[in-house]
């Protein structure tokens, strides 16, 4: 909840094209991406956007495929909003916001076809690689989705999957020699908040709380691949168009943080 | 007056939320809101114009208490100093011991339960109400208090005005044709006391008719006809 005074202040600044922290309407906060921080994880990345801090970890495990896709590997995304990240987060199972975030990122990866699941199959119907992606929110200062999405993509790009040999349906895993996983284009997600009548990119926490609604748009190779409107507010049709266009152009910028990683496909 | 300003519906039309009713200098009445000079309905209801005011009489909706409303409710709990009464409003109502009866209750000597117990139906008046809080009731007037005989009919609160009728025409008609005492709670509970159960049933039938046909003009005449027919059949 945001105080009326703060909200009024944010709105009046926006009316003169300024934001609380001096950014322009379409500017991201300072972004930092670091990878390979957690030795025991197969892939990891820590992303900060301003003071928002998210850690993503990847573990590859062998397990059964889904019954209706016996020859595809499994990708699963889970997010935890840790209680230490914000006075408003409570301990317990993921709430609707954490579940929504995980599912939005999952959809963006799936539709971008970022991970070639067919190459993760070992013994059809019995054994496949499962990519467990866990998103850990460490500090909430707004725009958890973009930070989490970037951390996920960075973790995947820098991850290494063990090699497996399949002999007569028996799988032998070589944990020593790990190789890059079968990845193709990574999506990036751009979140735009609507505050009053203004659209701003990368809302900081105060802006998020003052916003009526947000639109998170995932882009890959110049196309939209996922979108999620959240919040109880509304958008005009023209604002949807504007947001899509903003996301496509900012996406390029975000993508530059991933390009240097693991050959950056 | 406002005759030349655009109006998109006429009296007695059924309108729905978001429907554009009129434009211009009309004033928004019940269940109507004005935006950019246009008047819209916010409920499913019947359009009624009244001297430049656009009203929508809703066909369903919650009971919103008003100070002075006569209501009928059920005691659902008793605290140390008050009764908790369900008056079918979004919030339960409180009847403080000090307002519970014309004769003052001595809390030190008497148990609240002696006067009204959980499950009792009461006729009361709303003495205070702020939207965010619970309404307060009083039974401190003559005619208010516990209901001990007769029967109770429940109808949607929004249909109560129709049941009462313009200048009480409908309710007077029912009372005179059936010979029953009828107390109408603004919250949609109706207390009927008749000489015999058949008379009370007749009231129930008239009420049912009114609730079902509230949106069709000429209701008073139809109810009168129905009551006279039933009486003829009886004799």
């Amino acid at each position, binding site marked *: 909840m945001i105080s009326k005074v703060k909200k009024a202040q944010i709105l009046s600044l926006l009316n003169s094209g300024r934001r609380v922290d001096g950014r322009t309407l379409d500017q991201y906060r300072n972004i930092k991406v670091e990878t390979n921080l957690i030795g025991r994880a197969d892939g990891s990345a820590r992303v900060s956007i301003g003071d928002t801090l998210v850690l993503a970890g990847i573990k590859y495990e062998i397990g059964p495929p*889904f*019954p*209706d*896709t016996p020859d595809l590997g*499994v990708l*699963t995304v*889970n997010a935890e909003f840790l209680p230490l990240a914000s006075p408003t987060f409570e301990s317990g199972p*993921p709430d*609707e*916001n954490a*579940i*929504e975030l995980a*599912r939005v990122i999952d959809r963006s990866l799936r*539709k971008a076809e970022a991970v070639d699941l067919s190459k993760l199959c070992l013994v059809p119907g019995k054994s496949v690689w499962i990519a467990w992606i866990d998103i850990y929110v460490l500090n909430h200062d707004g725009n958890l989705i973009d930070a989490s999405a970037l951390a996920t993509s960075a973790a995947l790009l820098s991850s290494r999957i063990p090699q497996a040999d399949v002999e007569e349906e028996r799988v032998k895993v070589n944990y020593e020699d790990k190789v890059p996983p079968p990845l193709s284009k990574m999506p990036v997600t751009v979140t735009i908040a609507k505050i009053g009548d203004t659209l701003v990119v990368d809302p900081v926490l105060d802006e998020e709380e003052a916003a009526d*609604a947000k639109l998170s748009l995932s882009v*890959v190779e110049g*196309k*939209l*691949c*996922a*979108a*999620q*409107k*959240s*919040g*109880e*507010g*509304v*958008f*005009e*049709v023209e604002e*949807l168009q504007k947001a*899509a*266009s903003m996301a496509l152009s900012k996406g390029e910028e975000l993508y530059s943080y991933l390009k240097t990683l693991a050959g950056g496909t | 007056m406002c005759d030349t300003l655009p109006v998109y519906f006429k009296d007695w039309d*059924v309108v*729905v*939320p*978001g*429907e*554009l009713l009129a434009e211009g200098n009309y004033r928004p009445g019940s269940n109507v809101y004005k935006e950019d000079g246009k008047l*819209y309905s*916010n*409920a*499913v209801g019947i359009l009624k114009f009244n001297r430049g005011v656009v009203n929508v009489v*809703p066909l*369903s*909706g*919650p009971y919103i208490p008003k100070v002075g409303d006569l209501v009928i409710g059920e005691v659902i709990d008793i605290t140390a100093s008050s009764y908790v009464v369900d008056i079918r409003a*979004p*919030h*339960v109502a409180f009847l403080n011991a000090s307002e519970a009866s014309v004769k003052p209750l001595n809390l030190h000597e008497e148990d609240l339960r002696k006067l009204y117990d959980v499950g009792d139906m009461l006729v009361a008046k709303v003495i205070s109400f702020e*939207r*965010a*809080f619970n309404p307060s009731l009083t039974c401190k007037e003559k005619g208010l208090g516990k209901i001990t005989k007769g029967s109770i009919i429940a109808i*949607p609160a*929004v249909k109560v005005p129709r049941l009462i009728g313009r200048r009480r025409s409908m309710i007077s008609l029912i009372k005179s044709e059936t010979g029953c005492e009828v107390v109408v709670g603004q919250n949609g509970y109706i207390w009927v006391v008749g000489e015999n159960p058949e008379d009370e049933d007749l009231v129930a039938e008239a009420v049912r008719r009114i609730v079902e*046909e509230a949106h*069709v003009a000429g209701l008073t*005449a*139809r109810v009168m006809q129905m009551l006279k027919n039933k009486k003829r059949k009886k004799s």
Partner: protein
Amino acid sequence: MGVCLEEYQLGEGKVRLNMAGEQRRLISDDGVRHDGRRPDELRPIKMSVGVLKNANGSAYVEQGNTKILAAVYGPRSVHPRHLAYPDKARVRCRYHMAPFSVETRKSPAPSRREVELSKVLREALSHAILLEQFPSTAIDIFVEVLEADGSTRCAGINAASLALADAGIPMKDLVAACAVGKVDGYLVVDLTDLEDKNGEVDMPFAMMYGKRKVTLLQLDGKLSYEEFLKAVDMAVVACERIYMMQKEALKQRYLTLRKSIEGGGST
């Protein structure tokens, strides 16, 4: 193992179209869909209002084989008290699928998908309600999917709007919803389950049509910017048709009775 994996096993994978494992085309060369519809055609839609006795408002909607029952209770008091908002009503929404509503029986326990959709539906409907009129109360919306054949969240929103209006809860406008998808390269409206699972794109969309305000937008699949604009246009047109049907459905129960009374004479 978490709740996560359970999720996907339950009907979110790809559907085999025939035993040979070959993919049948979902749309013919002249744009006829697997169920005979044109790309911009809605399925047969049925709407009834006031179908449950106890709920303050209710509605039943069918869109093709998708069957949704929605009910509204409220405004009513919130328990525990600290959950109430002092200045407006709190909207709570539960989207739930019956175990027998899908091909492979679904456990009745709320899945992650149902948690997300409950939030999405709440956010699609809240703005339409005049919440400030009922501070410190709750408005509870229940959407039950009885049979799922695509676009359940959209049909759910259509039903919930009707249920809210039936309950007499003051609303700025009705909310109409429709999903647009892409199937074999064609943009289509009102997806069936087959089209959703085997198509390239699913874009659920809802708006307060009279006010032209979008309350729900999700996208699952690739669309170019131009395709996105076209898809939104198609969604708006589809929503208009649904909105008109919702208005009809709300008025119908009163108008039929009125006609019979005014036409047939009194009893």
